[in-house]
């Protein structure tokens, strides 16, 4: 049976999209999370606007926007489908995760900031040495969950012609419809196997985070 090697060809595309999207999504999550907490009104509003737009519309439509609409409308070249795919996924998940960043920072006990002020730390030092290390521990489990979701979302890039696992599966099915159940079963297995280490990682992050923030 030749299904397996064909699907395997798609794995590297899936992984590349996953890794790039995840890195960019975390980066965006921090930038937008801090943006929401900014003292500057316009930055707060702007990031709030971005977050609502990306959470309020569907990822698949965003993907088509980046791939088809934006290049035509604004005559900008987003490079290739990889660029469009990664941008759409990371901006979408970055918007969701920015709320985790913001929520975790706010959730750190106010007494921590007060103790840091009493030591006369600067704003930056308070964030860097006191608040963030505790906030990041709270973020970890949620970040892990979102990593698994990003993996699942990568399959959407097959719709803009990227040759990921699902794309190869679809091609196979179009040439041999009778094999459809086997093909899609195998695809499920593929994604699940890819998700396994991420599930494990999430568990690990949960246990780290439980150890980290016992009350002072």
């Amino acid at each position, binding site marked *: 049976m030749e299904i397996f090697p064909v699907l395997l060809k798609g794995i590297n595309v899936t992984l590349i999209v996953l890794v790039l999207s995840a890195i960019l999504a975390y980066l965006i999550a921090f930038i937008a999370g801090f943006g929401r907490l900014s003292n500057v009104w316009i930055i707060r509003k702007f990031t709030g606007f971005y977050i609502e737009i990306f959470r309020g519309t569907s990822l698949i439509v965003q993907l088509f926007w980046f791939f088809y609409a934006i290049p035509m409308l604004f005559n900008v070249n987003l490079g290739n489908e990889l660029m469009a795919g990664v941008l759409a996924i990371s901006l979408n998940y970055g918007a969701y995760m920015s709320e985790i960043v913001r929520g975790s920072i706010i959730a750190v006990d106010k007494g921590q900031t*007060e103790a840091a002020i*009493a030591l006369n730390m600067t704003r930056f030092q308070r964030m860097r040495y*006191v608040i963030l290390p505790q906030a990041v521990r709270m973020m970890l489990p949620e970040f892990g969950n979102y990593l698994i979701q990003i993996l699942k979302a990568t399959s959407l890039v097959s719709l803009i012609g990227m040759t990921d696992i699902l794309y190869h599966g679809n091609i196979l099915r179009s040439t041999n419809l009778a094999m459809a159940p086997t093909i899609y079963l195998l695809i499920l297995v593929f994604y699940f196997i890819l998700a396994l280490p991420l599930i494990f990682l999430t568990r690990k992050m949960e246990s780290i985070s439980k150890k980290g923030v*016992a009350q*002072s």
Partner: protein
Amino acid sequence: MSVTKEVSKIKQTPQSDKIKQKPIVMYEDVHKSFGDVEVLKGINLQIKPGEKLALIGPSGSGKTTIIRMLMTLEEPTEGNIIVGDNNLWKVKKDGEFKRANEKHLRKVRGEIGMVFQHFNLFPHMTILQNCMTGPVQVKKESKASARERSIQMLEKVGLGDKLDNYPNQLSGGQKQRVAMARALVMRPRIMLFDEVTSALDPELVGEVLEVIRDIAQDGEMAMVLVTHEMDFAQEIADRIVFLEDGVIAEEGTPTEVLEQSTNERLQSFLHRFRSSNGN
């Protein structure tokens, strides 16, 4: 309550010497409101260098707010707080007083340290790191020197064997002693204590008071203690201030305030207080 405690042993400089010195902190007609509620209604208070001041009064009378304003954790709604030669919350610019910015606050609050009721240790740092972070990050002291001084300070508060423990591995009394060491390594000229024993189990109060007594004996640092430990206040304070409903209702030496005052509100506070504490 034992009336004639030998107070003088503790106090290094007699009261008369301190009175001559220029105050290190001055509250001038300070008001504070939260929303529509005015919780401090014109506080005038001076603290001399090295003075030990106890702040007593019923819960909700504004004691915590008074010291939080000095630590720059709350901003007064009216009035001035002068620290040394600086107006804490205001800067003079083009002949006008403007609200102080973070830079100004940082300059002035370097003189001040605080110990909190709920310790507020940094849970992600070891005991030693809790103490070192101030000197290293804020004072730019070398790690070696900060480490050495932190260890000394932790030994002084009796925790030399806990350096690499995390706060959640300590008892409440130990945590509060770490918090004091952390504040002390910054060498403040004024140290604020906000009911530092009231979150502790009764059997752990003694060890914390012992450390404060020890610090008080060192002398040169001014201390403001918000406390419900009347005997302790009487023992180490040069002066006691009784706060009631946002105003200073009585003020004087421990003997004057705790024994000779005829202020009725103070009498009833002390009476309620002593009867509820069974002494």
